[in-house]
């Protein structure tokens, strides 16, 4: 069986054929689903844990510190140790809390991030679902997490949590718009909402290069808006620790708290992955037309590495944001969205429509 790390389509069809030939179709599907499930849970856990590690290391470097360095070499096992510690922490129940919603909230935030991760194209032929409205789906699912945050804050029966939850409601709801409109600009360029098509359309250059100024503007807007949507600093108003101690997850303890924490990092991964897919060409290698030698070298790097590399780059930028800026106040946050990002975004879309109309982008 020939499969390579450059194209996973043959690999997945081989797995599919092998399964269907050896057992009944129902069982084959079950085993397939089980394999996919195990792989994704493992992937999810590894990404989540190592993003936490990465954030701690990056912020330590920015702050002239060493960061985690005790557990394992360079502290690589630190977050795994933390996970076990959190598993063994007591789950505290809050008096008068709405128990059902209180327990439901971590499920919602995690499920939302799982649903989103399903649609990401990790490499050629390596995606669980390839919907023809992929961007739309991601846009919809990634905003589900806010329901979890709202529920968490509201059901805790704590005043700090409630303020955090309501803040996050207003915030995520607003920034949702900018995320959508920023993604729309690439939909206009590529003429498709299917993620695999969008990636394929960047074979001769990434959209951020091909779409020049308007694409860069949308990329910046997307970065800002998606940082806000994932409740990360400088937009971490929902858990503003100097104001609300821990905001919406004040009352959560142990592993339930860990899920909010994990979901925050997974959401960061998801938005970074979307940005990488849509603006930076997903798993497409970096090509400059004409320079064939370099293009060949770039082709040797597997698509999966390209994808993860681009995602890591965007995650680094988001961390860089977080550890540099002071937090915004709620009214400034909304002002930024409604008076700056949204009008700029609308103007940008008109500009893109015009550019597409005149054909002034690199085709």
């Amino acid at each position, binding site marked *: 069986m020939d499969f390579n790390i450059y194209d996973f389509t043959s690999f997945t069809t081989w797995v599919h054929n092998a399964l269907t030939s050896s057992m009944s179709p129902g069982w084959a599907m079950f085993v397939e689903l089980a394999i996919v499930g195990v792989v994704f849970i493992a992937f999810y856990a590894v990404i989540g844990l190592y993003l936490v590690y990465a954030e701690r290391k990056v912020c330590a470097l920015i*702050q002239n510190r060493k960061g985690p360095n005790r557990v394992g070499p360079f502290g690589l096992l630190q977050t795994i140790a933390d996970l076990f510690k959190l598993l063994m922490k007591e789950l505290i129940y809050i008096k008068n809390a709405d128990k059902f919603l209180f327990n439901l909230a971590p499920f919602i935030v995690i499920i939302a991030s799982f649903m989103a991760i399903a649609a990401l194209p990790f490499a050629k032929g390596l995606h669980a679902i390839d919907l023809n409205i992929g961007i739309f789906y991601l846009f919809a699912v990634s905003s589900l997490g806010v329901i979890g945050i709202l529920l968490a804050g509201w059901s805790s029966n704590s005043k700090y949590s409630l303020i955090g939850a309501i803040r996050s409601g207003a915030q995520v709801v607003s920034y949702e718009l900018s995320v959508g409109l920023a993604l729309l600009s690439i939909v206009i360029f590529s003429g498709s909402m299917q993620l695999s098509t969008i990636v394929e359309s960047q074979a001769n250059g990434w959209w951020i290069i091909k779409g020049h100024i308007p694409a860069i503007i949308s990329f910046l807007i997307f970065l800002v808006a998606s940082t806000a949507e994932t409740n990360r600093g400088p937009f971490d108003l929902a858990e*503003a620790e100097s104001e609300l101690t821990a905001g919406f997850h004040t009352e959560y303890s142990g592993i339930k708290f860990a899920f909010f924490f994990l979901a925050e990092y997974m959401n960061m991964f998801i938005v970074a992955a979307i940005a990488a897919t849509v603006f930076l060409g997903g798993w497409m290698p970096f090509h400059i037309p004409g320079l064939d030698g370099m293009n060949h070298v770039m082709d040797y790097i597997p698509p999966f590495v390209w994808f993860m590399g681009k995602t890591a780059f965007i995650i680094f930028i988001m961390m860089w944001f977080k550890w540099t800026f*002071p937090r*915004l*106040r*709620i*009214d400034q946050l909304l002002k930024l969205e409604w008076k700056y990002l949204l009008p700029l975004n609308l103007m940008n879309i008109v500009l893109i429509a015009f550019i597409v109309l005149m054909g002034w982008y690199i085709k």
Partner: protein
Amino acid sequence: MEEIFQDIIIKKSDDYIINMGPQHPSTHGVLRFELCLLGETVKYIIPHCGYIHRGIEKMCEKNTYQQIIHLTDRFDYLSAHMNNEAVCLAVENALEVEVPERVKYIRTILAELNRIASHQLWWCAFGMDLGALTTFFYGLRDREPILDIFEESFGSRLLHSFNCPGGLMHDVHPNFQKKIKDFIKYFRKILPEYDQLLTGNIIFQQRSIGMGILSKEDAISYGVTGPSGRGSGFKCDVRKHHPYSAYSKVDFKEILYTEGDTFARYKARIDEMWESLNILEQLVDNMPAGDYTVKMKPIIKLPAGDYFQRVETARGELGCYIVSDGNKNPLRVKFRTPNFSNLFIINKLASGNKIADLVAISGSLDLVIPDIDR
């Protein structure tokens, strides 16, 4: 008289009360604000203090004058040296002892170093209040050289009971001058970074400019001193108006801003760091040789009467009021600590603003809670 009481708080039973502190990250210690909220907006704030009231004034009544010194370290621990100096100067003035020039110079240098260290810690904590966590580590990093100087000369980094009535405990370390010069060179390079990171930042400016405006009249009436008062144009720099130690020999500006908002208070402190560097530069090369203390009797008895000494700590005016009845123990020692007066302006400044502004405003007042409670 009635119109002056219009900001007296009237509690209602259906107020949405939320407690901020004593266990809260941004009250910098165990201070409790009882907030009444209207959505995100703060209606009124009732500060509750006394969580770390240790009765230092009562303890002072049982101790001799030398033994008081180490207690004064512990109210405003960030300007420990200036607190010590207040008691020492009060006792020296009461006994009419003239301390050597060298002592005056060293005391002034230490006070300015301590002021820089304190403002650095304020800067990093203020940044953290606003959510910029990196400032915290940069501030602490730059504070380290000062603490090293302290440690080398007096053996402790924060609470150095280094003064004693009549001079200093012992002479400074031989490396003292060289290290200070190194520090000045280092910190002059680093300070502009503070501006890039926070002062010029658009988010920071939006959050601080025009927030919590304190008028000059209020500053005087509420007794808000130090950089907080000077941000409102209240000329309250004790170093300038009632010079002590070697301050009459140095040339420095009193930092004054007239806006009175959070940003003005912030700028006043940043500018004070520059000014302190200037003072240090003027003093460190001209330290006269001489004795580090004058011979004092082992048991000091102040003549009956009362004595008042004002010094400028990093947070404002510290008054040390000693009433003596001629014994070896004082009859009454009262410390007029700057933060005690600075705290109670908070209701006036922050009510009507948001919770986030309350955090920013209380950060800009630079509260040190043990200084309030004593």
